[in-house]
């Protein structure tokens, strides 16, 4: 009996004016949206297919291989995975403290009048295109690095193998510095969101105990927001890993592994970028590059998914557990 009524209601609803339009519209937008998702799948599939030759030729030793030789047609990913990880890690080391300082200042400590204009200016950092960063880096930062900054660092920390060798200005160190600058807007913006999500009652609880503004931030706010801040940092890492032009122009483009940050290096992204200037690529070389691209995409995917999980967990819950 109820079943009949239900069916009757459905029928009546479907002949309501606009029901057809609603249906079509829902389907239209849905198909487009699913198409976008399919695009992602297409990317994965195309990369996989094109990397086939390389995958079959080198197998898992591709990741460990240290030679990238287009003459001998032998390719290995190790120098570039190393370069990517080292520059990104060092970029985080430099960029995270600054980003957190920026986020905390803008969110908690700044006088109200300064807040909006300073936030806007910091966001402008993200508006500069990568190639402009790279060009500026090449012509302004690198010479300064070579002449003053790197020697200064070397005199302080030269006992570490990381900082030995001859500073040239176009090396992994400079690339890391410019990466650090480029990830500051990402990390500070997401951290600021996490800090804003902390309920005002937490700050008040600390202040009412006699805490100073800084102490309230340290004890109550940052602790509460720490999952979101961690997610912000991982998002920054994701950005650093995929950054191409600025790194290409700063890193010296040498396909080998070396310990010192003052040596040239190469990341996955910068190698791919560099490979397309020359004469046309051999099939195996092309396939190897695509396999590298696949590796980069996977790295970026894993990092970003992990970051999103952390960030959304904090931002969607009201009283998170940090």
């Amino acid at each position, binding site marked *: 009996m109820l079943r009949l009524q239900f069916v009757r209601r459905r029928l009546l609803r479907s002949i309501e004016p606009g029901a057809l339009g609603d249906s079509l519209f829902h389907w239209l937008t849905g198909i*487009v949206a699913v198409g976008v998702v399919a695009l*992602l799948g297409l*990317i994965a599939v195309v990369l996989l297919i094109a990397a086939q030759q390389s995958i079959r030729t080198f197998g898992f030793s591709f990741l460990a291989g240290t030679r990238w030789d287009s003459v001998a047609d032998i390719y290995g990913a190790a120098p570039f995975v190393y370069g990517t990880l080292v520059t990104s890690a060092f970029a985080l080391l430099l960029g995270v403290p600054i*980003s957190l300082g920026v986020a905390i200042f803008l969110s908690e*400590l700044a006088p109200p009048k300064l807040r909006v204009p300073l936030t*806007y200016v*910091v966001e402008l950092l993200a508006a500069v295109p990568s190639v402009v960063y790279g060009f500026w880096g090449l012509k302004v930062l690198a010479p300064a690095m070579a002449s003053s900054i790197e020697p200064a660092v070397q005199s302080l920390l030269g006992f570490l193998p990381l900082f030995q060798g001859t500073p040239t200005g176009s090396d992994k160190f400079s690339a890391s510095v410019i990466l650090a600058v480029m990830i500051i807007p990402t990390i500070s913006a997401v951290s600021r969101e996490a800090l804003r999500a902390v309920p005002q009652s937490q700050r008040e609880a600390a202040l009412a105990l006699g805490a100073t503004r800084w102490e309230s931030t340290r004890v109550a706010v940052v602790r509460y927001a720490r999952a979101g801040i961690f997610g912000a940092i991982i998002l920054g890492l994701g950005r650093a890993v995929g950054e191409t032009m600025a790194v290409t122009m700063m890193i010296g483009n040498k396909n080998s592994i070396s310990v010192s940050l003052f040596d040239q290096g190469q990341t996955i992204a910068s190698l791919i970028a560099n490979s397309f200037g020359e004469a046309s690529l051999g099939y195996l070389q092309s396939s190897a590059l695509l396999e590298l691209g696949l590796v*980069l995409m996977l790295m970026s*995917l894993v990092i970003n998914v992990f970051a999103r999980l952390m960030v959304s967990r904090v931002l969607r819950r009201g009283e998170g557990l940090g």
Partner: protein
Amino acid sequence: MKLALPFTLPPLRFDREGRRLWKDLAMTAAAFVCVVIALIPLGSILIEAGIRGIQAITPNLFLFDTAYGGIGNAIQGTLILIALSSVIALPIGILTGIYLSEFGKGRVGDGVRFFVDVLTQVPSIVVGIFVYSLFLTLALAGLMSTRSVFTTITGVIALTTIMIPFVARTSEESLRLVPVSTREAALALGIPRYRSILRVVLPSGVSGLVTGALLGVARVAGETAPLLMTAYGSFYGFSGLDQPIESLPHTIYTFALDGSPARLQAAWGASLVLVLIMLVISIVSRAIVHFRSVSE
């Protein structure tokens, strides 16, 4: 004695409480220093591009092509690339954004949103080699010539792929801001859902959609990496959708690597132009958001 400082100086005591107040000031100053440090590169870029680039801004810079050290074809190329990309990416992105904000509540919607997010995070160089290998594979299969890899069309496809998920997310965010009460008011008048979206929700959120579109255009206008293996670059102006095409960021790259003083100066000029375009778009977006919220 009153000082016009934006903060109050703590009393000059060194007992525990005095130390805590001074530490508060010191940490605030340290955080401020972080902001200054972060802004130094921005300032330097603006100053250097301004000083070095302004000398390059002559009519010749825009009249000549990159073969002769100008950037005329680069600007033309960028305009063509972003125009074509926008024509494809904006409708698709906005429709996807509509789907996510209006119909994207359940698990299917969450899944779509997740994958769209993933797509926004794919490094732009990976998008470039995706398009490159797609066309290379098709060429190797005999379906098209190998020259079809380095064309305006592949460049457009690459930029479109980058732009779509970005616009989808910004559109969704903008439409989400439209209050539920607005939607309910429309439905309560007996308007079918699809018309309420098209005639009421979309117009309410249009400023956000425009901002998102502008930012998406800015994003792809500055992209170089995906074009290295698709649009490839050219010394001359646009010569057909099936031919390589130059772009402003690519010119900066090639001129930078060239190293000759004339090219370098032109590169600074190009950088100044590019940064100014980004600044203008950023300011215009802010203005739209500001005036929208003021008028409400």
